[in-house]
Every structure is written in C-alpha cells, then in structure tokens.
C-alpha cells in the first residue's frame, strides 16, 4: 500500500517533467535555398538520410531531398510557388512544413518581379548594405534566434498543470452528464 502511494507520487513528479513526443519541423530561406529542420519535440533531430518529399502548390510532388547530419535539409526552389515539405520519421511520426511564396529567397522573387515589371531605377535613399553583407546579417540573425525558436517550440509543447487539471475537470463533467442521462433513462423505464 505504502509502495503504491510512493509510486503514484513518483509518477506525478515524472509527469511534470515530461515532454510531449511530437514531431516539430520548420523551414526558412538561406541564400538561394530553402533550409529546414525536422526533429522530435524532446530535442532529438531527425536521423540523417531521412527522405523529405517536396510538393508544389499543395499538389504534385516535384522532388525529394534528404536530411543531413544535423537534422537540416536543403532544397533549391526554381520558381515562385508555395512549397510543402513532408517528412516521415517512421512509426507514424510525420510532419508538414509549408513555405509560402513571400517567404521564398529574395533572388527568386526579384527575378519574378523584374520579369513582369519594368526594372525600376535604383531608388535607394540611404546607404544600402551590399548583398553579401545582407546575407551575412541574415545568417547571423538566424543563428542568434535559433535558441529562441527552440525555446518557443518546447514552450508550445509544455503540458502545464492548468491543462491537465482542466482535462480532468472535463472528464468529471462528462461523467456527470452521463450520470444524468442514465438517471433519466432509469426514471423513464420505471415510470
């Protein structure tokens, strides 16, 4: 009996340290490529060599790429479209990431714009950073916010006490409703 209580207490301690075991994936642009990562919400990255299927405009499959050593994958888009990346980490763990046209690499978008519009004269009013520096800045910012993104991802996965208690409350409420229905049924049977 004593042991049993200890066990329950222990299980509760574990509960609040526990993390959901879900698949998390995200994608961003890096130079002319789309770069993305996939892994589990407990921090493990996807195994290198896992196939990532690429779909265009929510439809046809246009190719596939592979997860590299650090859980990252790369894909070079060739035209303006929304790209969907589908990762299957096995045993029913799948994830979808969609990159919309306005998230695509700048060079691609600019190419698309200049083809439809007359090239506008340079209208820069201030000192604009050269493309090389812009890329460096983008890289640095991405590196800086990497831990932040991870933190947000794990924060989203957090099972806080509130929702656990809320769930238990729902269950008790439903039990009450079922009781009510059962009582009505019994009454009408007796009547």
């Amino acid at each position, binding site marked *: *009996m004593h*042991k049993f209580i200890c066990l329950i207490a222990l299980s509760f301690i574990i509960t609040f340290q526990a993390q959901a*075991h879900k698949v998390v994936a995200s994608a961003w642009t890096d130079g002319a490529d789309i770069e993305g990562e996939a892994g589990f919400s407990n921090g493990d990255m996807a195994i290198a060599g896992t196939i990532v299927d690429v779909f265009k405009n929510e439809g046809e499959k246009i190719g596939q790429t592979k997860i590299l050593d650090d859980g990252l994958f790369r894909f070079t888009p060739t035209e303006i479209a929304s790209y969907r990346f589908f990762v299957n980490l096995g045993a*029913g*763990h799948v994830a979808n990431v969609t990159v919309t046209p306005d998230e695509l690499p700048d060079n691609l978008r600019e190419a698309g714009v200049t083809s439809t519009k007359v090239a506008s004269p340079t209208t820069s009013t201030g000192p604009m950073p050269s493309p090389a520096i812009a890329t460096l800045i983008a890289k640095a910012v991405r590196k800086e916010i990497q831990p932040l993104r991870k933190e947000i991802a794990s924060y989203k996965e957090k*099972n806080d006490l509130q929702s656990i208690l809320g*769930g238990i409350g729902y269950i008790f409420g439903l039990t009450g409703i*079922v009781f009510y229905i059962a009582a009505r049924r019994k009454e009408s049977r007796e009547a």
Partner: protein
Amino acid sequence: MHIVDGALSNDVVIAGGIIAVAGIGFGLRKMDMEKIPAAGILSATFFVASLIHVPLGPSSVHLIMNGLAGLILGWAAFPALFVGLMLQALFFGYGGVTVLGVNTVAIALPAVMMHYACRHGIQSQHKKIVMMWAAIAGAGSIALTALIVTLCLALTGEAFIPAAKLVVIAHTPVMAIEGFLCACAVSLIHRVKPDLFNTFFKAKVATHA
C-alpha cells in the same frame, strides 16, 4: 502510441472512425449506473498516464493503462478511452482530431479483448493467480495496441515486419511497467473493494450464487 494527423491514408482513417463509433455506441449501451464513476476515473487515469513519458533510447514511450480500464469496464472502455484521447488531442496535440477514431480503436479494442481474455482469471480466490492475470492484461493490451498501430501504418504503406518489430521492442519496458501497475492495482482493488469486480461481472456471480 498516438498516430498523428496525416500519417494514415483516408481509407484507414474512415474505417477506424466507423469501428470507433460502433464501439462507443455499444459501450454506452453497456454502461449502467454502477459503471459510470469507474469509467470517469479510468478515463482520467488514462488521460494523465499518457503524459508520463519514459525516456528510452532515441525516443520515449509513455504509459497507457488501457489494460486496467479494459479489465474493469469491458466494452465501456471504448467511450471512457475515447474521452481521454479527445481531450489529449485538443489540449496537448497528441494524435489529432481526424485520426481520433483510429487511435480510439488502437487503444480501446485491446482493452476489450483483454477484458474477455482475463475476466475469469481475476475472479480467482488466490492472490497470486489474480495478480498474474492482471499483469497479463496490462502487458497484453500494450502489445495489442502496438500491433494495431503498426497494422494501421502498414495498411498505409509502411513495411509491416520491421516496423512491428521496432514498435514491439520499444514497448517491452512499458509492457513490463504496465503489467506491474495493473497487477498492483487489481490486487489493491481485491483487498479494499472486491465488489468492484463483482459488480461488473454480475452475470457470472449470479450464476455462481
């Protein structure tokens, strides 16, 4: 052991939904006044138990406690476990709303099967035999759940044999823990509230009397 949205083909999702609805309907018909509080408690147990993750190698597995629910509730385990799964999907994003039916079947069906397989065993007067059968129910329902999940994935296209091996091996420790917990719980019920089982196996007790 939750299948997530988008992992299964539509056929499997629809079939799972139909079986789940049938099971829930049947379970609700079988649920009488005495069973309702037990169903609520076991639903809550399942809801919380699934949050307990046991880290294991590259991934982690969690308790399910469907064996105990099945032993006590029988068919009523279907609605009880469905409620738990639905709340997990809504609150924590475990599984998903579209695959709720498949997940319900994967977890509640083994519970019902273990109920019929082990119900006579836990009626025994000997504590050891009771605990043994309870452990079988706890471990067996996990194994069956793992098999159903793998089968669903196989129907969608994943190779069955390697995946099944992986899932069953990954769940061996959970099977041991669940078997142990189920045995403890059943032996506790036998000691403090033996009529819990008698109430629910009324038909059998009546024929003995």
